[in-house]
């Protein structure tokens, strides 16, 4: 099993971009509002998937707690929207506070009056929380399964905290954003949703380029080194703790942006964002799309979620079986994910099986290398 970083053909890359940009421009006219909104949501989920790919696909850190950072970003956005739309409610604070007899805004809400603060809080707060959790875990050299369990435990801690704090953040009900105002417009309105779709599309591409920039070159090679042989990286003079903390923090920041975009498009943020299955789903998107491919993470998140909504409409309750089956299929038949399979030797092996391509006699890598560079 190899996580190859095989380069795509230039023509494929170019045609991919043309199709992608055309689709983004055309989507609002092609799709009914309901579908457009769904696509926007799934695109926002692909940003959290990019983060999962960075930490898992490249660095080997299987986090089952990305929901924490996703939800934190969502809460930051929702708090801003609620507080700026609360002028008609008692005490000029969000409506739900009245239900619990709270008359004064809790202190941590105050900075969210500022759009400027919120803009940064959406990604910096999740990144800082991720950095802190990551540093403590990595410094103690907690790895592998123990890391996964620890992140899942942290997720449950956050879930229980947010779920129980009615007086602070409306507990299990979460914070609604669709009836709030942004720049004088209703967030849930059609025109705003279209704008959010554009913003999301642009941010997905930006996040993708950012992730590519992070993993290209020597920094990315160290991440791969940490994934494949961490002690060796140490003995070469690098401190893996710092690298892992940075990448975990980046993934947390991406999750925050993702959560904020998802929240404004789904109309609510609630502790449901921090349930165990949801964070595991994020890992499945990346596993199916292809670990260590970045693009695979985006495609995995969008396609699986779209399939989920289509299947759920046609055959309610059957989605869980399909998702489970898909995961088993990928783990057993395509361990590198769909995109990893396409980029690797997968298509050639398939064609060979049907006699459509010449069989390779020796190790594929040897023959391919010789064919490419005959100058030896």
């Amino acid at each position, binding site marked *: 099993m*190899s*996580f*190859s*970083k095989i380069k795509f053909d230039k023509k494929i890359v170019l045609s991919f971009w043309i199709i992608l940009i055309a689709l983004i421009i055309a989507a609002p006219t092609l799709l009914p509002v309901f579908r457009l909104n769904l696509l926007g949501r799934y695109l926002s989920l692909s940003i959290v998937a990019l983060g999962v790919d960075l930490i898992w696909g490249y660095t080997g850190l299987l986090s089952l707690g990305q929901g924490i950072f996703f939800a934190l970003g969502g809460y930051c956005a929702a708090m801003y929207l609620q507080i700026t739309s609360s002028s008609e409610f008692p005490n000029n604070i969000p409506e739900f506070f009245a239900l619990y007899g709270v008359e004064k805004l809790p202190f941590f809400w105050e900075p969210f009056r500022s759009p400027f603060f919120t803009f940064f809080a959406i990604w910096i707060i999740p990144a800082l929380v991720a950095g802190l959790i990551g540093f403590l875990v990595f410094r103690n050299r907690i790895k592998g399964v123990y890391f996964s369990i620890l992140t899942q435990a942290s997720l449950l801690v956050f879930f229980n905290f947010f779920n129980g704090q009615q007086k602070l953040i409306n507990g299990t009900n979460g914070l609604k954003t669709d009836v709030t105002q942004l720049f004088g417009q209703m967030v849930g309105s059609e025109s705003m949703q279209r704008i959010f779709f554009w913003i999301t599309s642009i941010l997905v591409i930006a996040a993708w380029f950012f992730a590519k920039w*992070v993993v290209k*070159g*020597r*920094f990315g*090679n*160290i991440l*791969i*080194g940490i994934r*494949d*042989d961490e*002690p*060796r*990286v*140490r*003995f*070469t*003079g*690098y*401190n*893996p703790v*710092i*690298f892992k903390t*940075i990448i975990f923090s980046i993934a947390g920041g991406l999750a925050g942006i993702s959560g904020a975009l998802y929240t404004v498009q789904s109309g609510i943020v609630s502790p449901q964002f921090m349930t165990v299955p949801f964070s595991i789903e994020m890992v499945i998107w990346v596993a199916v799309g292809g670990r260590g491919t970045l693009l695979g993470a985006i495609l995995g998140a969008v396609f699986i979620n779209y399939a989920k909504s289509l299947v759920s409409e046609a055959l309610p309750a059957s989605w869980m079986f399909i998702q489970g089956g898909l995961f088993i299929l990928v783990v057993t038949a395509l361990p590198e994910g769909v995109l990893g399979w396409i980029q690797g030797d997968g298509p050639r092996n398939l064609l060979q099986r049907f006699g459509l391509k010449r069989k390779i006699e020796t*190790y594929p*890598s*040897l023959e391919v*290398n010789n064919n490419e560079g005959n100058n*030896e």
Partner: protein
Amino acid sequence: MRGTMNNKDLLNLIDITVSFEGFLALNKLNLNLKKGELRAVIGPNGAGKTTFLDVITGKVKPTKGEVIFKGKSLVGRKEHKIARLGVGRKFQSPRIFENLTVKENLEISVTTPKSPLNLINKSIKDEQLNEIERLMKIVNLAQKVDSKAGSLSHGQKQWLEIAMLVGQKPDLMLVDEPVAGLTDEETDLTADLLKSLSGENTVVVIDHDMEFIRRLDSNVSVLNQGTVLCEGTMETIQKDKKVIDVYLGRPEN
């Protein structure tokens, strides 16, 4: 043979004891290395050869004793800090990054400073690129620059790891079984390479292969049951009765 400090010494191991739940992997081991020295370390299985390297590189903390390198104590320092002080290590089975290319492997080793900011921000320095080219020529991998390290043959992997070690520019090179699985010809080339590195560098070679050790033509330390049994040239240790008993075996008849 007690650890006597000498300012020409690069490394002093003083009364190193490592106990794994009562089992003494190293038992009051003393060893001194001069600057520029080439030293072979041999010993039967379980003599503590790898633990000895683990102690120097910070992987294992000695239960007792002191490791002095360039006048500084290494005990309690983290692995990457020790590596940055100038201790490089080649592992027993080749440990290279198989999913990276030959060049990327060498980049990891020659890059300084080894901080995230330097790596993400700046492109590699020209002198480091030159160094990579020089290393690839030395170990005959110049034509494999962009091949995945995982696709190399076993011998090439061993050599790549040696090149990575050299690229790190350590003052002390610890080389664990560099010729395991190599052909005779490759073994000879490796011996010559290591000999050429000593002088400027201080090199410790651990191996089982007596022919190879003989070819290194260096001082030999024989380890047995976690302690240094005997030290000297190959001729001296071959005549040493204790060494013959535990390791070399008596010649027949």
